[in-house]
């Protein structure tokens, strides 16, 4: 049962449209992320977004420390936010600098990035990016923290849904759609490699992405070929992917 009056909503939105130009979805997302750390009292927050090859890249962060967190993960292909995206679940760490799961991060991180939490941002039920927050000291995350972050991520998802339906959807929306279109085949390829080589999802994805980069091809294209969906061209030995 709906609890919204569509006619009243349209009348008010028309009023808001007057005398103002659109500022774009990226600008709005940036403002939303700036609100999140003030709302929860975190040291900083950021947003990472999946490119067409399912690689996370940082869209923005609230400060330089947060940028180092997102950049380090984009460079190494590992970290709490990458894990949150690949596993489609909340991932936290008390102290990312000493966490043995991601040893390569330490050297690239700003020293004041310590406690980190990442939650997936989903469209159509599948992850397309992550909302990331950090604390400048080691931090024990509670379940209530991740629940609140999931709720906040849900609001971001609704903003993305609204912008996706606009006439002016462009780069970001296209990237989101691309990620959605090719996610299934990439996920299947990851599953194939996990089963064949006894890998974790993160290891399988990293190997797939590396092979795609090395051969200057898209991850989705390589994934499809691995699965035999686009013939066997250019895949001399699928096992070399890992």
């Amino acid at each position, binding site marked *: 049962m709906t609890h919204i009056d569509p006619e009243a909503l349209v009348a008010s939105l028309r009023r*808001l449209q007057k005398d103002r130009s659109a500022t774009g979805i990226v600008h709005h997302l940036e403002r939303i992320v700036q609100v999140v750390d003030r709302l929860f009292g975190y040291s900083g927050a950021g947003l990472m977004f999946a490119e067409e090859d399912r690689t996370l890249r940082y869209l923005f962060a609230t400060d330089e420390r947060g940028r180092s967190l997102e950049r380090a993960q984009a460079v190494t292909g590992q970290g709490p936010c990458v894990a949150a995206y690949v596993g489609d679940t909340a991932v936290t760490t008390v102290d990312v600098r000493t966490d043995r799961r991601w040893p390569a991060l330490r050297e690239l991180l700003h020293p004041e990035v310590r406690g980190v939490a990442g939650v997936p941002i989903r469209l159509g039920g599948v992850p397309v990016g992550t909302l990331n927050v950090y604390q400048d000291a080691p931090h024990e995350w509670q379940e209530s923290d991740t629940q609140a972050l999931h709720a*906040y991520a*849900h609001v971001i998802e609704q903003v993305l849904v609204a912008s996706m339906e606009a006439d002016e959807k462009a780069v970001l929306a296209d990237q989101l759609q691309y990620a959605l279109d090719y996610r299934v085949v990439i996920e299947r390829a990851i599953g194939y490699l996990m089963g064949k080589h006894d890998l974790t999802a993160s290891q399988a994805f990293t190997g797939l992405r590396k092979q795609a980069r090395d051969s200057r091809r898209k991850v989705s294209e390589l994934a499809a070929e691995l699965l035999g969906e686009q013939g066997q061209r250019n895949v001399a030995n699928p096992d070399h992917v890992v």
Partner: protein
Amino acid sequence: MTSDASVLENVLTGMADLFGVDGAALMLLDGQNRLRAIGATDDDGVLLESAQESVGDGPAIESAASGGLVAIPDLHAASPMGFPHVAVHAQPVRAVLSVPLIEDCELIGVLDFYARDGRVWDRTEAEAGSRLGELMVIVLQVLAESRTDRAPSGQL
């Protein structure tokens, strides 16, 4: 339900979850600068907003008039602590926190958070309510810009 309405309902539900209250409701100014009930997360919220719109009084109306937060521990309390003439039309609702929605220094509406039990809204909750009000303004801007009956002028 239109997609805009669906998005707004989901956002209100997400905000109520974030805040840890029973519900959230929205009133917005229309083209004639009248505060109109837009919707809520449940029937109790719809009753609260409809009552305020029809009576012309209540925490949201007061918030819109003053441009500040209005925190009511018990809507049923005698005036000026409560709004018994509004409460009679929204019986299940007790505590209300009304947050003015400001865009570019201009009031565009009021966001109400409510609980079915009486409660005193503390400073931290008032601060959180303000932040969620900022978030709602952004959501409304996105919805306004996303409407197809506007001239495309934005860029990413």
